[in-house]
């Protein structure tokens, strides 16, 4: 068996623009149990257009790492069922999307919750557990 060169290569990284939205099923899961698997399953997801999936080579079910100066999370990729032309990806509001949001507001007090620039690459890591996202703040 030859050497798997692939494992030494860094996964290709792409720039991605993300906006956030609300989803009734995710909000329902939040009301029921914000520490539960259902909430994580519906939150730790990035939805991308078919065009963007073709460009990046990702497919539904892949795990991807999203990073920017504010933080890093691993989430699952889902293909959009809507008619989206591409260039914009979607995440529901949650601690996973909030990890990528800057605290800079020009002193106005309203962060850019709906405008996230990040880098995206394929990942073999597990979906970031919720307690990892809030763990740093435990006293």
């Amino acid at each position, binding site marked *: 068996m030859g050497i798997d060169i692939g494992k030494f290569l860094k996964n290709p990284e792409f720039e991605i623009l993300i906006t956030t939205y609300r989803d009734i099923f995710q909000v329902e899961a939040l009301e029921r*149990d914000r520490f539960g698997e259902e909430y994580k399953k519906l939150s730790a997801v990035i939805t991308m257009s078919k065009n963007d999936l073709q460009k990046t080579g990702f497919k539904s079910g892949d795990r991807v790492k999203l990073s920017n100066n504010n933080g890093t999370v691993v989430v699952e990729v889902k293909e959009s069922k809507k008619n989206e032309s591409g260039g914009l990806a979607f995440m529901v*509001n949650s*601690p996973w999307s909030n990890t990528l949001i*800057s605290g800079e507001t020009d002193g106005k007090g309203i*962060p850019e*919750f709906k405008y996230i620039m990040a880098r995206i690459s394929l990942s073999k890591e597990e979906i970031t557990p919720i307690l990892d996202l*809030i763990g740093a703040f435990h*006293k």
Partner: protein
Amino acid sequence: MFTCTGCALLCEDIEAIIENNQIKEIRNACRRGAARMKGCANRLVSSIDQKPADIESCLKKAAEILRNAKSPMLFGLDNSTCEAQAKGIQLAKKTNAIIDDTSSFCQGLLIEKILQKKLRTCSLDDIRNKADVLVYWGSDAQDSQPRHLSRFSYFPRGESRQRGYEEDRLAIAIDVRESNTAKICKGHFYRIPLKGDKEFILALMEALSGKAPAYDTKNMLGLASILKKAQFGAIFVGIGLTYSIKNDFEILTALANMLPRFNIMPMVGHYNMRGFNEALFKETGFVNRVKFEGKVVNDNKFAVIEALKKKSIDALVVVGSDPVLSLPRSIISHLASIPVVCIDPCQTFTSRIATVNIPSAASGVESAGSAVRMDGKLIGIKKIIENNYMTDEDIMKRLMEAV
């Protein structure tokens, strides 16, 4: 019939099937409302330093934290009754605290303009009875206020709109994505680029004044023509629009001035966020970001985001909110270095880091009172099941006595 506290529509037609003083089933509510009223899986337990403690000790410790703080903040109260909000404002006043709520990074900008009467508005009942043109702008009501279209706007029959959506009403969506609400607005979905709302508004204003805008000329003239013909119109302003034009908010007023038969409706999520804004506005002239220090001071530096970022508060009391969930992660690190008091019916991400946790009754299920619907109408909230939890109002009152 009971009132749902799932969102600021405050639906009053809820039926609850009770068995052994437990809610077995909720009828008529949407998924969000039913889930909220059935209750959470993880009830909050009273604790100090994350170790179980009796309620009296927790109240004593919370009062001590407030008393010792030089710059405390009271945050939340959007999921509390008007009665609890009034007590919360008095508590902030008594402790010279900063008081802020979720509207600070949500619809506060818009609600302030409405309360200042700088934007024309109407009731949801007016919309059900009279509205013929409905514009959902940066708002996916189907997912955030799921019964909005069926109870008040698009589908119902109204006094002047007997034929509802089939003939009498036209719904338009302006959004960056084809939301579930946009899907209903067939043939009238205007997709705009992220942060493209300002350019869209300016082009629409040109079209309304009879000029041919350079931006998407054909669609823009078509939309202007529909809006001009409306007899009674409503623009449902979602958070998507508010965020997009937050630095140029006056352009919404300018657009509204060109549409004299249209009313602006803030699409509010938390069931009594507008109640908080109205109560604080009545008391101080401001809807949020207020510091009491013998006098009332309103400043952006008292926004929860800025206060946490600049580490300018030394204690935080959170009522019915979960800032660790809803704020950018980069901002909330300051919470690790200050005492946090969490008052909530359920365990939250904030309760997991709180110094003191005080469980409260879930309003609309375990406690009664009143709340303000997204259109400003005061709605009664009933208690469904008997319980021993303290209400937010009781807790605010006890803290006020103890400090």
